């Protein structure tokens, strides 16, 4: 496990302070925070690439706070991948092995095994500049994992990718972690990414950790306004794909089954923006495939707009204008229909 105690880092214009984390063996840990919160610097401090002012970093029973980066056994993958442009894919993967004096006769098979694991065996001879974003990401992963690090640091690994590649890479990160079981610390500003991948999530805001917990705990009890803003800006559900064909899936979220567009299967998360849900007294004769009757369980008046919670169950938070709210005559306890398009659901 990796333990971070009272870490303090100077970022020039502000400080990271009182950073305390205990990350268990084989855990996939997410640090979630807005852009500019110092997430990358925190990773670099853990890797020994950025000086710390105060505090301690331990891996198992060894303190590494003052150790040189090459002695720590911590791998890093940057957002822009940082592949060595003058080396081929296989030379990139071999780099760490050569630095660590890996036996020459086993080098070949180790490179092949790493390439196979991330699915880039056909790219070994290529130069990094010819690769797509997703391919570069896999090479960077293979390069970092080749040296069998104790801890893997991922700096916004998905944010430079297009949405489709991002969805696929997310699945591959989960699969990679399932196989390698290395302690993984992944930083991101994307709430959905955090919910989808993290076994536990820490929220970093204004230079310190404001909450640590499982994704479920976050969704139920957002303890800070920062988290709440994330959590309330959309309806988030966990579900299971029960029927699927091609790019279409029927997802059971506990009670109701939603139709959505996704290539993902099995356990998934869904998000649905409150403004994408139509609310009505009678069923709408529209082409939308998701239409359900429930009961209004809560009304939150925000002036010109109103958040109405419709319980099927589960609860759906819907955003409506004051005008339609008054026209519909909504109030607690009345029955209402909610309708939304399959394309309004984001599956991750």
């Amino acid at each position, binding site marked *: 496990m990796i333990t971070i105690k009272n870490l303090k880092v100077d970022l020039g214009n502000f400080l990271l302070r009182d950073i305390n984390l205990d990350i268990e063996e084989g855990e996939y840990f997410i640090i979630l925070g807005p852009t500019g919160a110092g997430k990358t610097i925190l990773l*670099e401090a853990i*890797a*020994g*690439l950025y000086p710390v002012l105060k505090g301690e970093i331990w891996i198992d029973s060894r303190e590494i706070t003052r150790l*040189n*980066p*090459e002695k*720590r056994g*911590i*791998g*890093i993958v*940057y957002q*822009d991948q*940082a592949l*060595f*442009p*003058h080396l081929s894919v296989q030379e990139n993967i071999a*780099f*760490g092995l050569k*630095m*660590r004096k890996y036996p020459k006769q086993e080098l070949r098979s180790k490179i092949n095994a790493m390439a196979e694991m991330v699915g880039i065996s056909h790219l070994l001879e290529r130069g990094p500049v010819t690769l797509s974003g997703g391919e570069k990401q896999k090479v960077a992963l293979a*390069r*970092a994992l080749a*040296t069998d*690090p104790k801890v893997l640091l991922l700096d916004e690994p998905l944010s430079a990718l297009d949405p489709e590649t991002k969805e696929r890479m997310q699945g591959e990160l989960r699969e990679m972690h399932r196989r390698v079981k290395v302690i993984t610390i992944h930083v991101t500003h994307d709430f959905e990414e955090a919910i989808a991948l993290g076994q536990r999530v820490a929220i970093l805001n204004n230079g310190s950790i404001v909450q640590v917990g499982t994704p479920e705990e976050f969704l139920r009890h957002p303890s800070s306004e920062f988290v709440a803003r994330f959590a309330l800006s959309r309806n988030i559900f966990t579900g299971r794909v029960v029927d699927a064909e091609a790019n279409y899936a029927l997802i059971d979220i506990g009670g109701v089954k939603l139709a959505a567009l996704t290539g993902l299967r099995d356990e998934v998360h869904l998000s649905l923006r409150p403004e994408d849900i139509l609310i009505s007294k009678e069923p709408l004769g529209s082409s939308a495939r998701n239409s359900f009757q429930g009961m209004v369980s809560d009304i939150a008046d925000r002036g010109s707009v109103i958040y109405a919670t419709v319980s099927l169950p589960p609860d759906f938070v819907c955003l409506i204008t004051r005008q339609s709210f008054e026209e519909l005559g909504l109030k607690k306890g009345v029955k209402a229909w909610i309708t939304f398009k399959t394309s309004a659901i984001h599956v991750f």
Partner: protein
Amino acid sequence: MSKISLRRKPDTMSIVFVVLAAFILLFIFVPPIKTIASSSPGTLWDTLLSKDVYSSILLTIYAALIATLIGFFLGVPLAYILARHEFWGKRFLEGLIDVPIVMPHSAVGIALLFVFGSNFLMGRFLNDIGIGFVDKVAAIVFAMMFVSVPFLIDSAKEGFKTVDVRLEKVARTLGASPWRSFFRISLPLAWRSIFSGSVLMWARGFSEFGAVYIVAGHVPFFGYHPVAAPVLVTELFESPGGLKAAQPLTVLLILICLIIFIVLRTASYKGKKA
């Protein structure tokens, strides 16, 4: 890059600019071309075979090469520090490094004598270890180095700046010491700039007259006593033969510079393609 198209109605500004450009190009090209064109290959060959001339050219090539090697060894680390670190007074230091480019070169020679002349500490030290300074090869090397090393430092610095510092960081996490990360990542990636800076330094050293003229006349060089080639051109010009006497060596020096220029361009073009 967009190509200027002259086929369709060119606007007035383009016409004016092309005319002005033509003037400056003629000004650059005509003198060397005319000097080369009005010489005969036979005279060039005879001149090259004269011991005064070829030993002088060899001395100049050799001294410029030694200057470049020393400049490389000491200048590349400085360039790396300037590219990677921020520190108090860095801007000022960077300005200072370029001073030799704008200093009158005769003044450079005088300044060097104030440190390395036989009456001064460094000069006595060089004498004691048998290298010597005034009227020795070492004087030519130092004079060349002083005026040309900024080209190498600046070029290498720009080269290192283009290397993403994260590449070095990743190399460190993969097990590379600072030395190995430098030699395996930073240096190879900045190599093209360092190489072209070195060629530029060599060429600038090769063509130095003023500073060399002050610190060294005829120097012992492989059993002979040549002067540096640019100094020899001046000596020939001031001889009774005048312009005519100076012409063949002048042509040879221009040709050497042309060859260097072509080598540099080819090397950097290949580098870009790779």
